[in-house]
């Protein structure tokens, strides 16, 4: 059965990781879900996440985190990469700004979408 899908291959959305129009993470703590804007560096296929040290609520090591990099306002411009994984603390990456706590996100699942490429596929949404 044919379905319309917005999903695309990650390779087709690499520009989002290079330009990083909007980036944030979500994680859980005792207060509930936390949405936090981040600085993202995508280097050698590693996802390096920086959170200002002044931010009180930070994800614990090994914690499950979801990273969202997205862009667009109008329907056919909406694009995103969604990565679920675990974070591990790392040293400040080369050339990265100081004053941040840095983590590497180790992906478990990656999804990318682009509403400007809505297309038919067999049995997928």
């Amino acid at each position, binding site marked *: 059965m044919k379905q319309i899908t917005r999903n695309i291959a990650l390779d087709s959305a690499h520009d989002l990781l290079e330009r990083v129009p909007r980036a944030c993470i979500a994680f859980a703590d005792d207060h509930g879900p936390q949405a936090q*804007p981040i600085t993202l560096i995508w280097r050698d296929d590693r996802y390096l996440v*920086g959170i200002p040290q002044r931010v009180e609520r930070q994800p614990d090591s090994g914690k499950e985190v979801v990273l969202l990099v997205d862009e667009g306002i109008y*329907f056919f411009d909406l694009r995103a990469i969604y990565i679920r994984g675990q974070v591990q603390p790392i040293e400040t990456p080369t050339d990265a700004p100081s004053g941040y706590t840095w983590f590497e996100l180790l992906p478990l699942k990656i999804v990318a979408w682009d509403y400007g490429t809505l297309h038919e596929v067999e049995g997928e949404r």
Partner: protein
Amino acid sequence: MNVDDPEVLNFVRRSMVGRIATLSRSGRPSITPLYFVTVKGHIWLGTANWTLAAREAIADPRVSVLLQIEQNPNDHRILRIVGSATVRTDAKTIRSSNLWMALKYILTPGSLRNRLSNRRLLPAERLYPRQSEEKGLACIIDVTPEQAEFLEDIQLGQTRSSGLPKEGER
């Protein structure tokens, strides 16, 4: 910051995409970008009741929403709203939401231009929500804001100030 502060209300009104963080019943996080409208101080994010965001908002009503003024690149603030959510599928709410969403996201010069330049995709766009209707009901995630906090868009700040090398230069 008070959620009724005029600066907060004005910011929410000008924002276009809400990124809502939710938790599953077992405490796993998610974050979903959604269109939204504001109605009587509430944030109504449009989706369907089978989606992860809606199912999680039902499982745990605590939510955290990030907003920014996408159409003003000089405004580097991000607004974080923390609140509680209910998921509504009643016909009156959905009709009202559809109307406000159409006024905000479809019947605008920018949207009409976007649709015109992607007109080859309009048949697929019409089919896409029909697939969703086969899986469940259209719904809104109705967020009652409890706290508001302005944050800095640190991605923009970082790339502008640090001169990080571009990907091809790494």
